[in-house]
Every structure is written in structure tokens, then in C-alpha cells.
């Protein structure tokens, strides 16, 4: 029996699942937007701007979800500053939660800047102060690319660190494999691409541009499927935890509906929106199943062999 079966469940439930999902989308979309910003063409600009907007909204939403999940929400700043020694910084490089709190803050800053730059590019900023900030990082400029590039790199971190965070515990499944971070990176990339496809369609993205995002989504799904297989393989005997409702969710919801079905749709060159919706569903169910399968392990019954 894995030693992880003797630990206690941290009650990370709906807010955290939503945060992992939203953070993954925001990070993946921002990464893809940054790649297209740097290496894409003028026809990709609507997708780039959409990506930065998704990142900015996602970062703000992530911070809000994490804060309301705390037992003492008004003490959220204790993760950033030493409460007894303000304004001394609180930072532990070896603690993913500590690292992540700072990363969300910095990611939020850069993604909001990039989103403002995109709005300035479209001439949508009315407020003088925002127009000044947005103008300084107007989409397409050199500085905007640097800011977007930093946001994109931080986006990959946001998408993946949540999986690393789960691995750096002593809980069943999460701590029994070092592959969760890699899996969440791949899932963040696929869900981020899916969000860009769905929103890009409404925001006047070119067919060419959407085809690029869709082609990337196909590759991200293949990577996700491979990493998921490695992850399951690495769990060994702990896989018995999946002999539950959550195993069914993983198999049917994630593997079949969330990966194989959209892959098939992509390969058949069917309308990209249906595949994107399935990818988003699969991304959510992946977090749901991973969290609840471990949360549901009752240490005492397991310890007593019941």
C-alpha cells in the first residue's frame, strides 16, 4: 500500500477545481496568443487579442476563486507578505502554492497589460488613464511583444504549476506520480486553444488563423493523451482508486469525450466549434476526476483494510 493513503484530504473542492480549469485555459490561451503574436501574421491579430483577453479575465477570476476558497479570505495577502513583518516579502521557492501566488499576481499584471494593448490597437479604450497605459503597449509594437511574451511564458507556468502543486503533497494519486504537472500543461494548452477557437469565431478571426489554432489543438490533444497514459501507468497499484465513479468520469468523460472524440472531429475536418466544446468539457472533467478521486479516499477505512 502506498504511504499516501494515510494522509488527510485538504477539502480542495469546487473553487479549486474551477480555478485549475480557468487557470489552465487562461495560461494555455495566453501562451498560444504570445506564439501567434511573435511568429504569426496580421491575419492572426484577432486571435492574439482574444487570447490576451482570455488570459486577463482568467487571471482575475483565478485570484478571486483562490481567495474565496481560503478559510480566512481577508488574509489572502499573507501569501505575498509576511503578516507580522509587513512589507517584507513572503516567498518560498520550494512551495508551489507560495510560488504560484506570486506567479498569478505577475501573470495577471502582464496579461492585463497585453489585453489593454490589444484594446488600444482596436481603439476601444475611452478612459484616458487606460488609453495611456494601453497606448504604451499597443498591440503589434515591440514592447507589446515583449510584454505578451512574458505573459505567455507565465501562462505555461500557471497551466502547469497546479499539477506540480498536487504532486507536492502526500495524497493518493497526486503524490504517487510526477506527471500531473505535465498533464495539466498539455490540458491547459488544449483547453486554451479550444477557448480561442470558440471566442475567435465570434470576434472575427480569419479562417486561416482558426485553422492554425485548431491544428495546434489536435497536437496538444495527442500530447495530452500520451501524458495521460504515462501518468496512469506511473500510478501502479494506486490505480485501484480509479475503481470508482471518478474512474468512469476519467475514462468516458476525459479520454473518450474530451480527447478521442474531438481528435476524430479534427481529423475529419468537421466544424471546429463542436470539437472545441468537447475539449473544454474534457479539461474540466480531468480536474474534477483528479481532485475528487483523491479527496474521496478515506484514510481510516483504508488503514483498517475496510
Amino acid at each position: 500500500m502506498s504511504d499516501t493513503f494515510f494522509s488527510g484530504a485538504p477539502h480542495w473542492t469546487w473553487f479549486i477545481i474551477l480555478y485549475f480549469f480557468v487557470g489552465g485555459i487562461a495560461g494555455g490561451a495566453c501562451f498560444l496568443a504570445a506564439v501567434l503574436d511573435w511568429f504569426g501574421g496580421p491575419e492572426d491579430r484577432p486571435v492574439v487579442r482574444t487570447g490576451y483577453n482570455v488570459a486577463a479575465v482568467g487571471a482575475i477570476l483565478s485570484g478571486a476563486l483562490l481567495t474565496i476558497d481560503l478559510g480566512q479570505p481577508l488574509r489572502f495577502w499573507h501569501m505575498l507578505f509576511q503578516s507580522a513583518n509587513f512589507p517584507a516579502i513572503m516567498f518560498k521557492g520550494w512551495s508551489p502554492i507560495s510560488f504560484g501566488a506570486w506567479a498569478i499576481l505577475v501573470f495577471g499584471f502582464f496579461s492585463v497589460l497585453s489585453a489593454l494593448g490589444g484594446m488600444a490597437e482596436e481603439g476601444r479604450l475611452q478612459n484616458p488613464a487606460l488609453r495611456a497605459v494601453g497606448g504604451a503597449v499597443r498591440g503589434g509594437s515591440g514592447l507589446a511583444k515583449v510584454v505578451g511574451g512574458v505573459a505567455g511564458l507565465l501562462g505555461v507556468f500557471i497551466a502547469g504549476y497546479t499539477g506540480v502543486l498536487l504532486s507536492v503533497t502526500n495524497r493518493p494519486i497526486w503524490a504517487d506520480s510526477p506527471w500531473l504537472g505535465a498533464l495539466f500543461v498539455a490540458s491547459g494548452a488544449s483547453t486554451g486553444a479550444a477557448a480561442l477557437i470558440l471566442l475567435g469565431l465570434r470576434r472575427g478571426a480569419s479562417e486561416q488563423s482558426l485553422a492554425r489554432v485548431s491544428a495546434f489543438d489536435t497536437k496538444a490533444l495527442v500530447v495530452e493523451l500520451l501524458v495521460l497514459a504515462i501518468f496512469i501507468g506511473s500510478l501502479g497499484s494506486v490505480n485501484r482508486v480509479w475503481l470508482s465513479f471518478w474512474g468512469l468520469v476519467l475514462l468516458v468523460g476525459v479520454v473518450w469525450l474530451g480527447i478521442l472524440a474531438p481528435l476524430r472531429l479534427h481529423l475529419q475536418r468537421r466544424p471546429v466549434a463542436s470539437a472545441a466544446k468537447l475539449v473544454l468539457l474534457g479539461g474540466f472533467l480531468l480536474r474534477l476526476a483528479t481532485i475528487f478521486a483523491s479527496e474521496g479516499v478515506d484514510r481510516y477505512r483504508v488503514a483498517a483494510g475496510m
Partner: protein
Amino acid sequence: MAEAMGFFTDTTVCIGCKACEVACKEWNQLPAENGGIRELSGDSYDNTRRLDGIHWRHVRFIEQFKGPYDGRWLMMSDVCKHCVQAGCLEVCPTGAIIRTEFDTVVIQSDVCNGCRACIAACPFGVIDINPVSGTAQKCTLCYDRLKVGLEPACSKACPTDSIQFGTITELRTRAEKRADQLKAQGVKAALYGADSDGPLGGLNSFYLLVDEPEVYGLPRKPQLPTRNLAKSAGFSVLSAGVLGVLALVGLRKRRMDQVGGSGGSN
């Protein structure tokens, strides 16, 4: 720094009276569960069942019965292990968990914001949220009593000296002597967590057991949560690298196709 202090729990003399649980609750003013109306476990005489934010001591009843005339009760007063290398302290993002001058591990309730990272990090399932404070809580090894030279409430109340309090050096000597005595009598006795070269650098609350650790709900080889950090981060970077290359290669291929296509039409 004062000398390292801790508990040695000799499970062979525990009678399951729960005086330690009561003393702990009383001294630390811990609230009752469910307004004092306890739900019975229904499958054990152990109705506390677990350590959590409002149960910092728990007398574990292990009922080993194969038939009406063949069985035994094992009893163990469980508590925070005050690990020399503590997983909770390692991951706490607010700095609320500290190591005291007595080499014990204490959560500062006014600093904790209830993120619950420590709960998942503890290999023993010791910590949980206290619903009254909204913060993570566990045994403090009566830090307030130690500061004024008093013994922790639980060991003070223990009528059989199953829970012994003292300096770690002295407790280890005493524990080894007791284990040898039991072994000489043919009892399968073993110390858990008494070895400073063992897992987590040794436990400042260690035990004498007469069955396998798992039977008492203790992991055989508890580990620090950060054991996975480097590998997990490395694989994440690898995954990100592969996706980055795929994105760039795809983009380049499409652009080349576009250039080729426009060149052909000219």
C-alpha cells in the same frame, strides 16, 4: 535553543481511557463536534475516529477480532509527530507554521489563512481545519505550558504513563530500554520514529508498537512532499517544451505553405 522536547508513547500500556483527549480539549479550549451530539461510528468503540482541527489527541482503538475467543485490542494515543523535517512547515505559503525553541512544530493561528496546503502535505493526516477559526490547527505540544515550565496537558493526565514527556535524548533511551524488555518477554515490539537517521529525520513524538505501522494507521516510510518537486517540475517543462516546438513547427509549416501557395499563383 532549549533542548528538543517531545513525547514517547508506549502503546502497550494505553488503556483507552481518553483522559489525554479530554485534557487536550479542555486546556486548548477546543470546541465539541456537531454541537456535542456525537455520531457513533457504528463499527468500532472508537468514536473520535480521527485527528483533526478540533481533535488534537485521538486514542485510536484497533479491534483485532477473528472470533469470539480470539482477539485483542490495540490502543494508541495519536498526536502530531512534530517531525524533525516537517512537510507541513515546508509547504506552508504564509509562514504560519514555525519550529519553536523546543524543536516542536506550531501553527500560528493568527497568521494562517486556511489554504490547507499543510493538510495534504502531512503524511500522517494530523492537521485539519478548525471550523471555528477557519484556520488549520493541530497539537502545539502545549507550547504555552512549555514556556512556563509545565508538562503538556495530555501526558500530565495520562494515568498509565503511556504518554511520556521529556527531552528527546532521555525519551529515546527510555524507549529502547522498554522495547528490549518487551522483546525479552517474546513480544513483537518495535519503535516507530525514534531513529534520527530514519524517515523525516526522526519524529519528536514517537511510538512503541506491537504490530505493523499500517495497523495503527501510520505510514511505513513517511516522506516530505517536496520529494516530487524536481521531477514534477522537470516533466512539466518537458511537456511545455514539446508543445512549444509543435506550435512553432506548425506555424512555420503553414506560413511556408502560404508562401508556396502565393508563389505558385503569381
